[in-house]
């Protein structure tokens, strides 16, 4: 028999491998990283134009606007998560690799968050200031968005895995994922709002942490099951 006992790489090695590959691919396609970020900025710009240039009025709605814009930007970014790999056949090679698919997909989602979610977290304080948000709120804003976009990435990845083989499935993806993401929006936007009024944010912040842990532990299995169905044909 030709096959020797291969030295199967450990789980940590696999995670590093997936991250290295996706980061390398992202470096060669900067536009895919920048576009969701630009969308985020443009959408937040729509609100002063639509409502009022007065910072007092904008300040009141700033947490909500930032969070909704982040949700929509993260939805757009999901297009680049799985579709390229499914189309060129590399995803089905992962399904057939004998390694836990849930782990491979979680690693991919985490890398995707680094490339699309983290920039939002860093850009939000700047955009928030443009909407009249005080600097004192920046830490809470960054923390809630970091935790929240993580949950959004996981829920989005489940939806993306379900719809990746559906032609023109981006709107369907939004319909499936947005209702599931509403709790994250509620807790995140509320936390920033509380911070703006100087009130304690431990409650919603802890809920965001709990949600993230919950989705990280169970989400990958749903992703893997959905992906196996999507790569069938």
């Amino acid at each position: 028999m030709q096959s020797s006992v291969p030295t199967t790489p450990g789980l940590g090695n696999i995670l590093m491998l997936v991250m290295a590959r996706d980061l390398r691919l992202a470096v060669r396609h900067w536009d895919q990283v920048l576009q969701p970020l630009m969308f985020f900025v443009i959408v937040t710009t729509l609100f002063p134009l639509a409502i009022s240039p007065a910072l007092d009025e904008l300040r009141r709605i700033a947490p909500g606007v930032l969070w909704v814009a982040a949700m929509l930007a993260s939805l757009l970014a999901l297009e680049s998560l799985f579709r390229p790999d499914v189309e060129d056949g590399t995803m089905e090679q992962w399904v057939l690799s004998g390694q836990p698919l849930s782990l491979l997909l979680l690693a991919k989602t985490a890398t995707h968050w680094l490339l699309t979610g983290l920039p939002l977290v860093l850009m939000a304080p700047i955009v928030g200031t443009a909407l009249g948000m005080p600097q004192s709120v920046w830490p809470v804003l960054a923390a809630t968005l970091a935790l929240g976009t993580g949950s959004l990435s996981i829920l989005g990845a489940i939806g993306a895995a379900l719809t990746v083989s559906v032609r023109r499935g981006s709107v369907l993806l939004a319909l499936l994922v947005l209702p599931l993401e509403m709790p994250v929006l509620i807790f995140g936007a509320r936390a920033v709002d509380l911070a703006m009024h100087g009130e304690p944010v431990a409650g919603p912040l802890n809920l965001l942490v709990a949600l993230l842990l919950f989705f990280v532990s169970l989400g990958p299995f749903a992703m893997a099951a959905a992906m196996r169905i999507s790569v069938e044909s």
Partner: protein
Amino acid sequence: MWLWFHKLSSPPYAYRTVGLMRPWLFWPAILLMIVGAFGGLVLAPEDYQQKDAFRIIYVHVPSASLSLMVYVVMAVAAAVGVIWRIKLAHAVAAACAPIGAWFTVATLVTGSIYGKPMWGTWWEWDPRLTSELILLFLYLGYMALRASFDDTQRADRASAILAIVGVVNVPIVKYSVVWWNSLHQGPSISKLAAPSIEGSMLWPLLTMMLAFILYFGAVLCDRLRGEILRRERNASWLSESIASS
């Protein structure tokens, strides 16, 4: 017991059995609805605060409970279909979705009608109505996902994953909506809370609840038979039974 269950998973047997069950669910449901409606609309006394307006809870509350119950039934059926590879379970899940969606719509409409005399507006973002709205989106998303797959088997399995993810998220959504609402008006009850219920008001509510459950069963039987027909339309047993009838 297992043998019957296994037999039930064969489409012709299920088709016949479910057809036989249907009248036993439908007529008691209608009867209970008449009794419950009479009890609720005529016999129960006026509420002290809400006068006659509260009577809509006899439709609103059962609708709301059922909209949630049907989602759970749908998710459980989908899970059974995926774990034990029983196609009939997938047919049950597919049949449940539109029924549950309609119950959600009924809850929203009756909630709106209930609210008008109380709040003066047709809509308020109160916890129950908001979470029912999100539940409606979950139902519609499920049906949209099903429709986007040409192959029924793939549609079954993909939507099963969505249903399971959804049912796990429903408690989270409900909790978050209640939390969100409570921040704006202090720890108060839903504006649509039923008035303090006493005996003569309670039994019609329970009767209507049971009536709605039986009605759901009857409509499920109808839809399930339709699903079976659609899925088995090329099967020999169907053409044989049509030829013989």
